Structures are given as structure tokens and as C-alpha cells.
């Protein structure tokens, strides 16, 4: 499985853009795939240049450690997060009214980056993902039932899926009254087409899970199954994907795929009209299936969304259609959107942002000003930061343990703006994942500044006291700040630390090399859905060590690899989740390939006239579909 992470380069081969001209070369790096996490650092450094570092010092020193206790409790609540795959009743529309929700008005949306993709099959990142909640629908979706309880419900389908054959066959029935924006009905043909076109060479950015499961291969070999997609008359055979009638879609897998409802809930698997598919051009002008449609789009400048009259609320268990329109403005930096929304002046009262978060330097202010705090929502992003230990170079487990004890996790949280920007991690699994437990084998939570004494003792025992330790980090302000504290601890523990700061843009290229000269280096990784199945194998499967792969610590342990294969086949997702948690801690304790550092958190604010705002723990952002304009 793959997951969102700071900079996605890796996995197996996909001949991206092979049939494409230069026009189709898609940037996915700096801006989009680099996630908001590292983009924020990039932007912050820009601000530093501009402001002569005036504001930056403030941002990095705003620790806020005192509030951690309170937040830790909230996280523990998150720990019993569990997802249900919902039945037909729970998948019925319309969605329950939002308290105070009313029709009318226009919501202004401030976004930093323009949407690079509108074709759902090309959507993977959070910006477009947030937009997709308004204009695209798939077979399943996530729905918040209460507080931090979510379930996977049928969206276009009547339920979250009926499995048979031990999870190898999944059957979906389409609801009545579902239509594209041109008024044509959505049929099983469209669903089939949507899946099949993801095999076409021009689809390069979206998720690949279901294609891989259908082809039962890893990497990009799945494309061989339907080389040109459905565009040259060929289709997936009925024993792979079957559409016996207009309302029925049946997936046939060779292995049980217990997590299909999760995968189908990804915006990338939303439905595309077979008749109106314009292939490459669809990316600029798609047909909407959600409550809003695109009235105009000027790349880099603005987008206007208006109500889609063909969308029938009775078919939709989750979405609303409160405002008349959304006016999205691009190019608004985090600093700028934070200032505008904090000010709540004039038209900013009617503004919000889908994915711009509060910039690190303003987090403390937002958290401490009750008037602003009232208008803010916050929660976990999917990312967890890790300090990887290059197991090719540091083979002595005691040394790795020493490093793990020495890390000052509080420092990285402070660097990211304090409690608003993150929370210390005790283990590898994010609190947003099912089955997460707040274990803390290396006392990372109990000793926020690190346990230098214990580290020193372990290093002495290993007989490597005074050893040279090359510490690579991204030269973004957050990591630079952290590196100072970390180096101090490591040197106190007896290491001879060599710091190597690497340009932010090339950082992941450098540490992603299977043979590199660094001993420890950080990375961040997030799950694709609330299961550690998109985390643990990516980070610690020894069969996946190669240039650009996410197994940055080059951890190999056949015992654990066998365990990963076993857990994948468990039919009950919640049970599998428990097993992943146990495995994660086992890897951490027995092999120490990486030190868990912190869970990324974010705060977003809206103007005072915006109602219905809540932080969607699954979208990892404010949920656009419930927003309305207050009177």
C-alpha cells in the first residue's frame, strides 16, 4: 500500500505519461505531493527571507508544552476510533440537517494552491480531495455519525458493499436517482468505465490499490491487465469486474480484500461518465456528480462552484447543499489566510479555507484568543514524523535504543507551533487509525525532553561511546530548530554528531537512496485510510528496500514480513487493526528501526458567518459539505 507522505517518490514502476506529450507531465512534487506539512516549511522559509526572520523566531519558540496534557487526553479519546462498514439503512439520504444550517449565501474559500487536477482518477492530494467532496461521488464514502465516530457508508451504492467468498467478491448495488450534472443517470457502466480508465496510461496520479488488487500484482504491473484502458474497445473480463445489469457492480479478487470499502471511499475512485469521458481533457472540465458543479475555473486564480440541480439530496447520506455558491481564490498563503480569517473583517466573515491551516507562527494566538478559537477547528493530519535509523549502517541494537531514548520529542512539537501543530508520538501508529493504542515503549511521552541518562548508559554498554553519528535533516525552520535540541541530547549521550542539513526540495531524494551516507534522518508518513495497512508495510517491509521507497531505515526482518502478509488477509478490519498495532510495537521494541517523533495536527479557522464547520478526521481538514452561511 502506499500512503500520503511528504514527498512521494517510490514504489514500483508506473510509466507515467508514456503516451503523453510534455503537456501531460504532471508535477506532483514540491507543491502537491509534498503535502501541506513540508510545504508549510517551504513557505515559512520564504517568509523568513522576506521578513528578515522577524516573525520566525516567534513561531519556533512558541512551545506551548504546558497544554500537552490536555491534548493527550483528547488523543486517547481518539484512540478508540473505530469504523463500521455501514448497511443500507445508514447509507440512505438525505443527510441529517446540520444544526442551524440554512440555504443561501456564498462562501469564499481561500486556498494556497490551485487545483492541478479535476479528473477524479488523478486526485490524490488533500487540496483536490477537499474539492472532490463537493463535486465527485464514488461507491462509498466516509460519514461522521457523532463526535469522532465515523462510518463507511454507501454513497452512490446502497451500502458499503456486500462481501462473499471470504472477501474475494464484493457486490455493490447503485441507488435510484443518481445523476451526472448533465442529467444523465449514473449506471454500472459508468462505474465500470471509471475503474477501467484508471488502467489507461494518462492516469498517473490517482490511487492504484484497486487496480493492483484486481490484477493481483504489486507495483505498476497492473497496467498490463488493460493496457489502453477502455478506450480501444477492450474491457476487464467479467471474472474481474462484472456489471450484470445497470444497477449492479461486482468486484472479483484473487485474494480477500477486506478493506475495499475504505479504498472505494478515496476520491480517486469517484465515478466518471462513460459517454462524456474526454480523457486527458476531463482533467480540466469534469462532469460533477456532487451537490455543486464548476461554473468557472481560472487555474491559479479562482474557481466558482454553483449548485448542481441534478444532485438529489435523497440519494446522499452525507452531503448538503446550503450555500448558493463557493468562490474559491487561489494563491493565498497560510500567513495571509490566517490573518484574513483572524481579522474577521468585512467579506472575510464569509470566508474559510478547505485546506489552508493556521501558519505555525499564529497557532498560539489562535489557541489563546477565545474569539478566534471559537471559530477554529482542529485535529490530526494523517502524518506521523519518524526519526529513521539507517539499519545498514547502525547494526548495533543498543546504539539504536540509545538514539531512541535520546530524542527530545517535545522539541519537534514546539518547532511545529506547539500543541496546535502537533502532539508527541509514543509509537508508530497515528491516533487517527483504527486500533491505535497510546503505548510508549521508549518513554517518549513520559520524558518529553528525552532520556539522556538511559541513552548514555545504553551507548556505553554497546561499547560505541564517542561514535560518529551523521544526522541529516531538511533545512526547513522546524527541522533546523529541532536538530539543535536533538544534537545536544545525542552529544550528551556520548555520540559525536555530524549535522548535515539538506535543501528542502531535494531532501527526500537524498535520504531515499538505498545507499546513503547518513545514520539518522527524519521523514513523515500518513495513512490512506484509517488502517495501518497503508503504513507499516510501506515503512518496514524489507522486501521494499529500493531507491525512493519509503522504507528509509532499510529495515529487514523476515519474521515480521511474514506477519504483515498474515494480517493483510484478516477479514475483520477492526481485528486486523489490533494486529497491526501489536506488530508496529513489536518492530519498534525488537528492532528499533525508527523513532516515533510526533503526530501532525492542524488548526483551521473560518469567518464568523460560516456555520457547520467541523474538522473531519477522515479528510484531515474542515468538511466542506456541511458548511453554511449564517444569517
Amino acid at each position, binding site marked *: 500500500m502506499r500512503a500520503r507522505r511528504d514527498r512521494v517518490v*517510490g514504489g*514500483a514502476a508506473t*510509466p507515467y505519461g508514456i503516451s503523453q506529450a510534455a503537456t501531460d*507531465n504532471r508535477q506532483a512534487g514540491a507543491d502537491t505531493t509534498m503535502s501541506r506539512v513540508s510545504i508549510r516549511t517551504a513557505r515559512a522559509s*520564504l517568509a523568513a527571507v522576506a521578513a528578515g526572520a522577524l516573525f520566525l523566531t516567534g513561531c519556533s519558540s512558541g512551545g506551548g508544552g504546558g497544554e500537552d496534557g490536555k491534548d493527550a487526553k483528547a488523543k486517547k479519546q481518539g484512540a478508540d476510533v473505530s469504523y463500521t462498514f455501514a448497511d443500507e439503512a445508514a447509507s440512505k439520504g438525505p443527510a441529517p440537517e446540520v444544526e442551524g444550517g440554512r440555504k443561501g449565501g456564498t462562501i469564499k474559500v481561500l486556498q494556497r494552491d490551485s487545483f492541478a487536477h479535476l479528473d477524479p482518477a488523478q486526485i490524490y492530494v488533500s487540496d483536490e480531495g477537499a474539492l472532490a467532496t463537493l463535486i465527485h461521488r464514488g461507491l462509498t464514502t466516509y460519514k461522521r455519525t457523532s463526535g469522532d465516530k465515523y462510518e463507511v457508508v454507501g454513497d452512490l451504492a446502497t451500502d458499503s458493499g456486500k462481501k462473499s467468498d471470504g472477501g474475494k467478491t464484493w457486490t455493490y448495488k447503485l441507488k435510484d436517482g443518481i445523476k451526472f450534472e448533465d442529467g444523465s443517470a449514473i449506471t454500472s457502466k459508468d462505474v465500470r468505465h471509471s475503474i477501467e480508465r484508471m488502467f489507461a496510461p494518462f492516469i498517473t496520479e490517482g490511487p492504484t490499490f484497486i487496480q493492483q488488487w484486481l490484477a493481483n500484482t504489486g507495483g505498476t504491473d497492473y497496467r498490463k491487465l488493460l493496457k489502453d484502458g477502455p478506450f480501444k474497445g477492450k474491457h476487464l473480463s467479467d471474472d474481474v469486474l462484472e456489471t450484470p445489469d445497470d444497477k449492479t457492480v461486482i468486484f472479483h479478487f484473487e485474494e480477500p480484500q477486506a478493506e475495499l470499502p475504505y479504498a472505494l471511499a478515496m476520491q480517486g475512485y469517484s465515478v466518471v461518465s462513460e459517454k462524456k469521458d474526454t480523457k486527458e481533457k476531463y482533467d480540466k472540465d469534469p462532469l460533477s456528480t456532487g451537490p455543486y458543479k464548476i461554473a468557472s475555473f481560472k487555474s491559479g486564480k479562482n474557481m466558482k462552484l454553483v449548485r448542481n440541480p441534478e444532485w438529489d439530496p435523497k440519494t446522499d447520506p452525507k452531503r448538503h447543499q446550503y450555500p448558493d455558491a463557493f468562490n474559491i481564490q487561489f494563491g493565498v498563503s497560510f500567513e495571509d489566510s490566517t490573518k484574513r480569517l483572524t481579522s474577521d473583517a468585512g*467579506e472575510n466573515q464569509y470566508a474559510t479555507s478547505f485546506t489552508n491551516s493556521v501558519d505555525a507562527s499564529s497557532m498560539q494566538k489562535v489557541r489563546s484568543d477565545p474569539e478566534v478559537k471559537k471559530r477554529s477547528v482542529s485535529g490530526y493530519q494523517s502524518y506521523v514524523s519518524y526519526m529513521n535509523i539507517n539499519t545498514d549502517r547502525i547494526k548495533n541494537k543498543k546504539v539504536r535504543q540509545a538514539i531512541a531514548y535520546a530524542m527530545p520529542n517535545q522539541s519537534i512539537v514546539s518547532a511545529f507551533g506547539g500543541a496546535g501543530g502537533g502532539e508527541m508520538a509514543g509509537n508508530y501508529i497515528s491516533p487517527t487509525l483504527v486500533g491505535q493504542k497510546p503505548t510508549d515503549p521508549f518513554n517518549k511521552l513520559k520524558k518529553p525532553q528525552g532520556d539522556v541518562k538511559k541513552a548514555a548508559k545504553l551507548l556505553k554498554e554497546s561499547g560505541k561511546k564517542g561514535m560518529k553519528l551523521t544526522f541529516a535533516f531538511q533545512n526547513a525552520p522546524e527541522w533546523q530548530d529541532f536538530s539543535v535540541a536533538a544534537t545536544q541530547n545525542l552529544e550528551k549521550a556520548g555520540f559525536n554528531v555530524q549535522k548535515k542539513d539538506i535543501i528542502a526540495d531535494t531532501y527526500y531524494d537524498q535520504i531515499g537512496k538505498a545507499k546513503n551516507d547518513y545514520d539518522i534522518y527524519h521523514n513523515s508518513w500518513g495513512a490512506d485510510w484509517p488502517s495501518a495497512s497503508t503504513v507499516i508495510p510501506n515503512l518496514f517491509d524489507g522486501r521494499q528496500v529500493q531507491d525512493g521507497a519509503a522504507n528509509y531505515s532499510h529495515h529487514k526482518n523476515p519474521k515480521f514480513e511474514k506477519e504483515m502478509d498474515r494480517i493483510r488477509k484478516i477479514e475483520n478490519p477492526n481485528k486486523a487493526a489490533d494486529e497491526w498495532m501489536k506488530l508496529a510495537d513489536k518492530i519498534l521494541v525488537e528492532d528499533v528501526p525508527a523513532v516515533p517523533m510526533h503526530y501532525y495536527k492542524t488548526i483551521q479557522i473560518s469567518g464568523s458567518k460560516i456555520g457547520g464547520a467541523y474538522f473531519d478526521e477522515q479528510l484531515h481538514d474542515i468538511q466542506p459539505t456541511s458548511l453554511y452561511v449564517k444569517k
Partner: protein
Amino acid sequence: MLRFLIRRSLGAVVILLIISAVTFFLFYAVPRDPAMLACGKNCTPDALAVIRKNMGIDEPVPVQYWHFMVGIFAGRDFAAGACPAPCFGYSFANQDPVWQTILDRFPTTVSLTVGGAAVFLFIGLGAGMIAAWKKGTLVDKAFSSLSLVLSSMQIYFIGPLVLALVVYNLQLLDQPKYVPLTEDPAGWFMGLLIPWLVVQIIFTANYTRLSRSSMIEQLQEDHVKAARAKGMSGRYVFFRYAWRGSLIPIVTIFGVDLGSLFGGAMITEWTFSLPGLGTLAVKSVQNTDLPMVMGVMLFAATFIILFNIIVDAAYAFIDPRVRLS
């Protein structure tokens, strides 16, 4: 005049060629691979090679440069279709055609630049003239010290400050934004008012001082005295004789300042999140978006050179001695 234009145009072509070459080759000096960024997830060496080929960055850099330059004048053929001249290619980042994107962003930057220049020339020259007229008085001293204070300001400092005060606290104006002049002239004006006032700040003070000293110098010129001795009124002499002469050093400096005015406009766009060439340039550099970077660089350079020619022509307009020699 024709010879002047021909000579200057040839010079401009040479400068643009140098700028394009420097930008192009510098781009490859940076250790960032646009193909790597475009390759995104699940990238392999094979996939990377294909993308390099598609982007045209598999060829030697000089060859790429040649194709790029030829494309500008003759257009280029991409697999997805022809790109007519002037073809700057398509964005690596989002496949938008570079030329159209630039044309789309240009009005914002031009509005900002020209409007800002109008504001600072008006305020700066006006204040300078008043100070010169009232030389030695309290007004003069107030203007002089004010311009000293303002000249130490910076856009990225004063911009957010003005925004916080005027928009957020006092709520006198709305959030700055760009509305096309052709759509809504009043909206255009109101939306850009703050950016104009901010962009002019770094210039106005200098032009106040320059205009003042230049004006004072002119007022002591014999021909100004002679005009007074002819019985021409003080005001007439001030505006017709002294002012005209005082414009020459100002025009000179204005020509020099064009580049920084453009740069100032870019920072201002960034400060107020206006969709102009400045924000486009920053984004493109961040995205390692070579065609867009090249397009913006060349466009901006052309713009600056063109305005420099206009400024030089303005000399001739102001001073007949330049016109005829």
C-alpha cells in the same frame, strides 16, 4: 527616431537572448529534477526516463534551449497537438499553456505597476515640488523628515501593517483584490488601492527628495531667473520652466527603478495574494516549472526593456537637446 528605435530593438533582442540563456542554464544548475517532481509516486527509473523524454529534458541542455527558442518564434509540435508561435510550451506543473497563463496574469501586474507608479510619481513629485516651493519652511521640513522615515520602509513590512490597520481593524476598505478594469472600473480601483499605496511607499520618499532637490536646483538656474525677469509669474515659471528641467533626473532614475518597481509589484502581489506575474513566478520556481519560469522571465524582461525604451523616448520629449543630437 526610427534609427533610435531600430538600434534599441536590436539591443533588446540581444539582452533577451542573454537573459533567456542565463535563466535556462541556471535552471539546470539547480539540483532539482522536474521529471522527478512530475513522476510523483510509484516512480521508477524507467518511468522517469519516459517523463524526461516527454518533457524534452532528456536532450542536452543546449539542444533543449534551441528547441525552446525556436518554439517562441516558429511554434512547436507536441504529441498532444501543435502549439502556435509564440510558444513557450506548457507548464510542467499543471499543463496550462504558458503564454495564455502569462497573458492572463499580466493585467494584474500591469495594473499594480502602472497604478503604483502613477501614485508615487504623483505624490512624490507633488510633495517634492511643494517642499521646493516652500523651501526652508515647516512644510518642507515635515516633508523631508517624513520621506526619510518612509524610505526606510519595506513592502513586506508595511503591507501587512496597512492591511491590519485599514482592512482588519478600521475596516475602511475591503480585502485587496484584482478585478479587471474592463469588468468593473470602480472595483478595480478600490481593490488595488491598498496595493498601490503600499507599492509606492518605497519609491515615493525617494522621488520626493529627488524632486525637491532637482526643483531647487532648477529654480536657481539662470533661465528660470531670466523667465522671472521677463515678467512671467512665479507659478508659470515654476511649472513651465523649473519643473520641466527637474523632470530629467527623475526620468533617469525612473528608468533605473523600473526593474525594482516590477520586483516591488511582485512582492506586493505576494503580500496581498494577487494573481499576477509575481505570484506566478514564485510558484513556478517552487514547482521547478521551467517553461513557466522562462516565460515569466522573458516576458518581464521584455516589459522592462520596452518601458526603458519608452523612458528614453520621454527624454526626447522633455528635452529638445536630446531630440536633435
